[in-house]
Structures are given as structure tokens and as C-alpha cells.
């Protein structure tokens, strides 16, 4: 039969030699190999103290961005919800009242903005769909929770705090 690839290796079926049959040299060789590993670099990371750097394309938890003056960028257009294949995003729009200009950037804003992290598949389509650069996926993990309702993230979970400067991803 013709070999499909040139990587096939013939099986060595020759009987074991005396040194192979007494096993001890092979065992010593194996022990030498494992001993070398004691001094090798550890493959593990001390997790809570040390975190592994993510790749720049990593998609973690969402964040709702603010503009340079600290106003919410989201105008509740709903494009993210429409683009979401898992239908994890729900929102309710409201109209900006006079005197709230320092809070919201446009006349319309999201009064309620929820992402169900149990449904979210972190595809990043919401980030791509957003015309206002309001939603981004960050480099944090989704944290654990004891209750299912704890995974529905509201605006208070998603909005970056006002003191922080908005830092859009490069």
C-alpha cells in the first residue's frame, strides 16, 4: 500500500536486548529526564498575584464608555441589541431633560441597559455595531456568581466610573 504521507514510521518489532529487558537503564534515563524538569521554568502562573497578559484581541466583559467630559456616549439606538446573535442585550431609551446635558451626550440616552452575561457569547458584534463608540469589550473575565440574576449586568455594572478617564481600546 502506498503511504499517504512521508511521515509514517515503521514499527520496531525486534526483540528487546538484554539491557532493554532489565529495564533499569531505561528507568534511570526516565528519572534523569524528570529530575531535569525540577529545575525548569514553571509553566504555571501564580494566578491571583500574577495575571497572564491577554492578547490584544481578547474579548472579555463589556464596558459602557463616557466621552471626554464624562458624559455617557450611549444614545440607546439599539444597534448593539440588534446585532447581538445571542440576544443578550436589552435597553430602554429615555429623553434627556434640560439640565442633564452634563450627564448624557445626546438627546436620547439609555435609561436601562442590561446585558445577560449568561447569554453573551463575547462575539464583539455589539462593539462593532455601536456608532457612538459607547460599548467596548475589555480584558477582564466574567466573574462568578451564586445566582442567575447576578449575571444580568445593569448600567451600574457596565458604566465606567465617572472619575476615570475614558480609555478606548487602541
Amino acid at each position: 500500500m502506498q503511504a499517504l504521507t512521508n511521515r509514517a514510521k515503521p514499527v520496531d518489532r525486534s526483540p528487546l536486548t538484554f539491557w532493554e529487558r532489565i529495564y533499569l537503564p531505561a528507568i534511570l534515563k526516565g528519572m534523569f529526564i524528570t529530575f531535569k524538569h525540577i529545575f525548569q521554568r514553571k509553566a504555571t502562573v501564580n494566578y491571583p498575584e500574577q495575571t497572564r497578559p491577554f492578547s490584544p484581541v481578547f474579548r472579555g466583559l463589556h464596558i459602557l464608555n463616557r466621552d471626554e467630559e464624562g458624559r455617557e456616549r450611549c444614545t440607546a439606538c439599539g444597534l448593539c441589541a440588534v446585532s447581538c446573535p445571542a440576544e443578550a442585550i436589552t435597553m430602554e431609551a429615555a429623553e434627556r431633560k434640560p439640565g442633564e446635558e452634563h450627564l448624557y451626550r445626546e438627546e436620547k440616552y439609555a435609561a436601562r441597559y442590561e446585558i445577560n452575561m449568561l447569554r453573551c457569547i463575547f462575539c464583539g458584534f455589539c462593539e462593532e455595531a455601536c456608532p457612538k463608540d459607547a460599548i467596548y469589550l475589555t480584558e477582564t473575565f466574567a466573574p462568578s456568581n451564586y445566582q442567575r440574576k447576578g449575571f444580568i449586568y445593569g448600567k451600574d455594572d457596565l458604566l465606567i466610573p465617572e472619575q476615570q478617564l475614558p480609555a478606548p481600546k487602541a
Partner: protein
Amino acid sequence: MTLLAIEWAFIIEKILLISGVLTLSLVVAMYSTWGERKVAAWIQDRRGPNRAGPIGLLQPLADGGKLFFKEEIIPHLSNKFLFILGPSLAMLVACMTSAVIPWGDVLTIGGHTFSLQVADINIGVLYIFGVVSLGVYGIMLGGWASNNKFSLLAAIRAASQIISYELAFGLSLIALLMLTGSLSLKDIVEQQRHGWWNVVYQPLGFLIFLICAFAECNRTPFDLPEAENELNGGYHLEYSSMKLGFYLFAEYINMFISSALMASLYFGGYSFPGMDSLGLDQNIVTLLGFFALFLKIIFFLFLFMWVRWTIPRFRYDQLMRLGWNVLIPLAIVNMLVTGALVLWRQGA
């Protein structure tokens, strides 16, 4: 107490020594479980326990606490007395062997001379064999009392393994005893103090002894009694909580004691090269000797772990074939050759 003429200092000394040796074995066994995981982690490029205390040093305590608080189940229709006796016996037997091991030379405190050996009996090696063979009862009782046929099968498997390897174990030692001419461990160590270590005269005997010690302690590659992955889990299948803990702990004590035994019989025990030419106080030399013995023991403990994380298990028929077809004939040949050499040297 003049009637019996018992020297109180003697009794107090022995009680102190016994408690000391027991504590030592327990602490070493505790930290062997920690060491086992650390060695495993290092060999597998991991870090091992590092949460409980500095570098995970409190891990054994955490494990003990966990075992104590686990639910304890005694199977319905099992023989409760035997069920409890099994792990107790395993633990007791493991601790008993330490009595004849010389942990060091003599200490002189206030005119009294204390020997760092609980009992220097002149049949020390025989005592060890007697006690070690009792260890099978712990395993058999555990398997039998569980009232579980798989446990029983595993217990039979374990017992036959231990009995098979005990033969080669004993035969390999006979060759050594021919050289030393004494069954007292203290004598054997003292002889090595003034001459070469026995491993120089008995390399094959040591190898057989080492392999058998691995098998007797149920350590990889001979840990079929508790091969939980491919067999059913072993004689302690029905055990939970601290009773299981006792079985596992007894294994570590056994490891410690057999390491001490190997160090004493073949590697000079508490003696170390240049021991008598240091010109130090006797007590200091004794303490140094104790540390020398301890270093040897730690090396053997490490060897146990090192081998465990290197070699896979034997198949059961391979294990039996190695014991009966290889080790016992080799031990007999070793014995005959040693005997011939001893006779030849006496004749010359």
C-alpha cells in the same frame, strides 16, 4: 520500687524516646504528603501547594482538618469491629517498626548515657520482618470487613503482592546478614562506621531490597493495591474520613521507616565519613550523626517520590513475574555468591 530494682531514669528515657520517635515519624509522614505534592509539581513544571502558609507548609494540617470533618460512613452489614481494626492495625504496625532503628549514637547527659534507640534487641532485623508481615493484616482486614467483594479482591491482590515481595525482601537481607554476622541494627550500623558502607559490598542486594521496599510500601510502580484509575480503588474502597486517612498516612510512615531502614542497613545509618576524626564532643557527634541519618532518609523519601512521578504502574502479571521469576532467583544467587565469598575469605 526497690523490689523490682527499676531504674526510673531508664523508664523516663525510654518513654521520652518513644514519644520522640513517634512524633518524628508522624511529623515526617505529614510533611511527606506535602513533599510528595511539591516533588510532583516540580517534576511536572508546576508549583505545588503554596496557599496554606508559607510555601504551602500548612497544607498537611489543612488536609488533616478536611479528613476529620468528612462524613464517616461504615457500610451496612460490615463487621464494625474489624472495619475499625483494619486502619488502626495498619497505623500501629507502621509505627512499631521504628522501635529497633538506631536514630543515633549515645548521648551523655549528667553522667547518664542515653542510647538514641528505643530497643537494641539482638534480633532487630527479625523483629522488623515480623512486624512488617503483620502489616498485611491491616490490608486484609480492611478489605474483608468492608463487606464489598471488590474490596476483598483488592485486598487479596495487595496481600499476595506484599507476601510475594517479602520473600525476595528477606532473601536479599540474608546475604547482608552473612556479611555482618549480626541481626542487631545497632551492630550493623557500628560495623559500617568503622568500615565501608554495606552498599559497597552488596550492590545487588541493595537493589533488590530497594525494589522490594517499594513494593512493600505500595509505592509506584507497585501501587496496584490502590490503583484507583484502572482497578477498582483498592482495599480501602469503602473507607471514608479519617479511617481512609489512616491508611494513606500509614503508607507515608512506612515510607519513612523503610527509608530509615535502608539508610541503616546499607548506607551507614547515623555514621558519616570522617565521623571519628572530627575530635568533637561525643554529644555533638551524636547529633551530627542524627542529622546525617536524617539526610539519608530524606534522600530516600525523595527517591520514592521521584520514582513515583517517573514510572508508570506494572500490570499485575508483570508485577508477579518480576517478584517470583526475577527478584527471588536474583536474591538467591546473590545469597549464594555472598556465602561463597564469605567462606573463601574465612578459608584464606
